[in-house]
C-alpha cells in the first residue's frame, strides 16, 4: 500500500467537480443528436402512417403486429440465418489465424495483426465492390472455375445469398480475429502441453482446454461479427438480389421507397432489441468469466 498508493489515488476529492463540466457539451450533443432521435424512432413506431407517407400521431401497436406478416418474418429469419452463418464461418477461418498469430514470434505479432486489421480500415463500399468484380458472370471466380474444369458454364454467383454471406465474412472477419488473438495470447502454452502430457488427444486438447479457456474471446468475437452482420445494408444491397434482402434493406425500403415511417421504425426497434440482447449476453458472459485465469 505504502509504495503505490502515493501515485494511484487521484487528487483530493473536492466537494464540487469543476472539471467535470468539460463533459457537458459532448453529452449534450449526444443527447440531442443520438438519444433524442432514437426516442423519436421509438415514438413513431407506435404512430400511424398518413395517406401520403406522413405520420399521424395515433397510438397504435399495429406496426409491430404487421411484422408478423410472413414476408417480414422471412426477411427477419434470413437475416438471422445469414448473420449466424457469417459468424460461424468467421470463427472457422479466424481461429486458426488468431492461433497462428498469437503463437508467432513476439515481434511479428503486431505486424500480422495490422495485416488482418488493415482491410477493415478501408472503405467498406469499395471492399464490397471488389467482390462484385470477382463474382459477376464474367468475373475472375467464374473464369477460374471454368479453367479448372469444375463447371462448364459460368455460375450465377452475384446477387445470391452465397454472395451476401461471402461479403459479410469478408467485411467482418477482422472483428473475429482480434478478440480471439487476445484470448489465445493469454492462454498459457504450458496448459496445452500439460493436457497433452495427460493423455489428451489433439481434439480433446482443443475441445477441453483451448476452447474453454478462450471462451471470452470466442464470445466477444462472435458478438462483434454477429451484430454488424445482422444490421448490414451495403452488403445485401450490392451483392444480394431481391430475394436475399436483410433487415437493413427492409428499413431503408420502408423509409425511402414505401415511405411508411411507422413501420420502418418498428422494424428498426426490433433490430435494435436483438442487437441489445446480443450485447447484454456478451457483457453477462464477460462478467461471469473474469475469473482468476482471465482477470487482469
Amino acid at each position, binding site marked *: 500500500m505504502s509504495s503505490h498508493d502515493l*501515485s494511484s489515488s*487521484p*487528487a483530493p476529492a473536492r466537494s464540487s*467537480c469543476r*472539471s*467535470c463540466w*468539460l*463533459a*457537458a*457539451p*459532448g*453529452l449534450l*450533443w*449526444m443527447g440531442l*443528436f*443520438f438519444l*433524442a*432521435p432514437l426516442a*423519436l*424512432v421509438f415514438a413513431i413506431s407506435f404512430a400511424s402512417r398518413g395517406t401520403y407517407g406522413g405520420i399521424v400521431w395515433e397510438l397504435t401497436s399495429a406496426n409491430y403486429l404487421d411484422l408478423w406478416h410472413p414476408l417480414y418474418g422471412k426477411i427477419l429469419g434470413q437475416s438471422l440465418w445469414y448473420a449466424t452463418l457469417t459468424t460461424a464461418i468467421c470463427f472457422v*477461418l*479466424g481461429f*486458426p*489465424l488468431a492461433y*497462428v*498469430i498469437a503463437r508467432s514470434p513476439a515481434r511479428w505479432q503486431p505486424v500480422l495483426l*495490422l*495485416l*488482418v486489421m*488493415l*482491410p477493415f*480500415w*478501408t*472503405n467498406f*463500399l*469499395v*471492399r464490397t*465492390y*471488389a*467482390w*462484385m*468484380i*470477382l463474382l*459477376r458472370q*464474367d468475373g*475472375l471466380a467464374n*473464369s477460374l472455375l471454368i479453367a479448372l474444369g469444375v463447371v462448364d458454364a459460368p455460375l450465377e454467383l452475384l446477387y445470391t445469398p452465397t454472395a451476401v454471406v461471402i461479403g459479410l465474412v*469478408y467485411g467482418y472477419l477482422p472483428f473475429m480475429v482480434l478478440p480471439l488473438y487476445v484470448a489465445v495470447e493469454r492462454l498459457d502454452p504450458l496448459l496445452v502441453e500439460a493436457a497433452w502430457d495427460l493423455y489428451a488427444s*489433439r481434439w480433446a486438447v482443443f475441445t477441453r482446454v483451448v476452447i474453454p479457456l478462450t471462451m471470452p474471446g470466442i464470445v466477444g468475437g462472435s458478438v462483434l461479427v454477429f451484430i454488424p452482420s*445482422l*444490421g448490414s445494408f451495403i452488403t445485401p444491397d450490392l451483392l444480394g438480389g431481391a430475394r436475399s434482402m436483410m*433487415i*437493413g434493406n427492409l428499413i*431503408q425500403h420502408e*423509409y425511402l421507397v414505401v415511405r411508411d415511417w411507422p413501420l420502418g*421504425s418498428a422494424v*428498426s426497434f426490433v433490430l*435494435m432489441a436483438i*442487437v441489445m440482447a446480443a*450485447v447484454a449476453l456478451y457483457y453477462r458472459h464477460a462478467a461471469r468469466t473474469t475469473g482468476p485465469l482471465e482477470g487482469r
Partner: protein
Amino acid sequence: MRRGSTGLSLVSSLAMVFLYGPIFVLVLYSFNAAHLSMAWRGTTLKWYAALWHDEALLAATENSLLIAVISTIGATLLGGLMALGMERMPLRRQQIIEGGLVLPLVIPEVMMGVALMLLFVMLKMPLGLTTVMLGHIVFNIPLVTIMIRTRLRKLDPALREAAADLGANSWQVFRHVTLPLLRPAIWGAVLVAFTVSLDDFLVTFFTAGPGATTLPLKVYSMIKSGVTPEINALSALLLVMSMASVALALHLQRREV
C-alpha cells in the same frame, strides 16, 4: 500442437489470401485497358485520368473533405473535453457514460441514419452538408472520447501530481504535462475520425440532401448504374488514402511514450 501447425498455417494463409485477394484484383483491374470485359488488354492510366475530368466527382470529393474536416474538428473538441471531464467523475457515473458511448458503436448504422433523418425532418432542417456534418460528429465523438480516455488512464497519475508539487496550477499542469502526453492520442483520434467520416456511407446516405453528394455516395450511385473501370480506379485511390491514414495513425501511436 506442432503436428497441427501445418494445417493451422494453411488455413491462416488462405484467410490472408481471402482478405487481400479481392483488394489486389481491384487495384490490378484499375490499370486494365479493357473497358467492359475482364480480359487483360494492357496497362493504362486512362481511367485515373478520366476521374480527374469528372466534375461531379471532384465536387463530391470537395464535399467529403469539407465534411470530414469539420466533423473531425467538432468531434475532437467535444470528445476530448468529454474524456477530460469524465476523469474526475464518480466511478459509477463514468461507467454509465462509457456504456452510453458504446451504444452508437454497436447499434446498426442504418438505424442511426434513419433516426437522424427523422430528427432533422421533424426539426424542419433542410437535409444537406450541415446535417451530414452534425451526424458525423455524433458517431465520431465516442471514437475520440474512448481513444483519449484510454491514453488518459494509462498516464501515471504521479506525473500530474509531480507537476502540481513543483508549483504548477491546474491550467499549467494541463498545458505542460497532460496535453503534451495526450498529443499522440489526440492526433490518432483525429486521423481515425477523419478516416471514418471520409468513408461513411449509411449515415450520409440518410442525412444528405440532393446537393450534398459525398464521395461514398457518388461511388454507390456509380456502382448501382453498372461496373465500370472508372470505379475501379476511384476505389483504388480510396483504398490507398485509407491505408495511408491508418499507417500515419499507427506511426503516431507508436511514438507514445
